[in-house]
């Protein structure tokens, strides 16, 4: 049991470092901060191609919403299954 706890502790340490590395690597995104800010009105992504991406985002929102609702159902079923034993 002691060995297992030791491994677990080491893993947690490693995990923390990984998370930090991932987070810091995301700072590269700031390089793009000013791209596209120029003339945002003419070349707005959402306004391009006849605003079709507005429709896309609406569909994505509905799908995500329904999926969250159904995951909620999944959680309830799991809880019931655990309680039965």
């Amino acid at each position: 049991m002691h060995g297992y706890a030791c491994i677990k502790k080491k893993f947690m340490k490693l995990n923390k470092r990984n998370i930090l590395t991932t987070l810091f690597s995301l700072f590269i995104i700031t390089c793009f901060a000013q791209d596209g800010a120029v003339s945002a009105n003419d070349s707005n992504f959402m306004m391009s191609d006849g605003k079709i991406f507005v429709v896309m985002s609406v569909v994505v929102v509905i799908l995500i919403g329904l999926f969250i609702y159904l995951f909620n159902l999944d959680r309830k079923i799991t809880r019931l299954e655990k309680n039965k034993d």
Partner: protein
Amino acid sequence: MQQTVRNLFFHVPMWFCMQTLFIISVIYAVRYLSNPNSKYDCYSAEFARTGVVFGVLGLITGAIWANYQWGAPWSGDPKQNGAAIALLIYLAYFVLRGSITDEAKQARLGAVYNIFAFAMLFPTIWILPRMTESLHPGGRGSEGNPGLNPNDTTPEMEMVFLPAIIGWILLGIWISTLFARLRLYKEKIYETK
């Protein structure tokens, strides 16, 4: 409008589905009051819950569409306000149910409040928005009904619109019955334990 008119198949059926689910919910509420069976209460509550989910999705998708069509996600349009008020009234239904611990009382008061909330749908989303000027179609001084502006759509789109409504409504009913069945099953298990 450009391509965003295609939201007709997604944003608008959300409201049709919400309305249908609330109708089914109030029917079960009335059935519970005439015959206090906890099965009716389960169905009533779960249909109302899924109706609220579809209503919230309708509000969010409407806000996205409005942001790119009217320039702001929320412009205080009478239909936006009416739908938000109607949803708040239904949210209070769950607050009321959650605040009562006695099951029979919870179901009975819930059913009575459900009928009130359903009655409030008529002024908030059916009558008042039609009497005022609105950015939506179907207000005073604009063409069509709240669901459809004939100037923006083609007959082909209406042909797709109807099956889309039916499909979304059936999806909503199916999800609600799943939740209700799970809840009934849970009640049965705890009774036998």
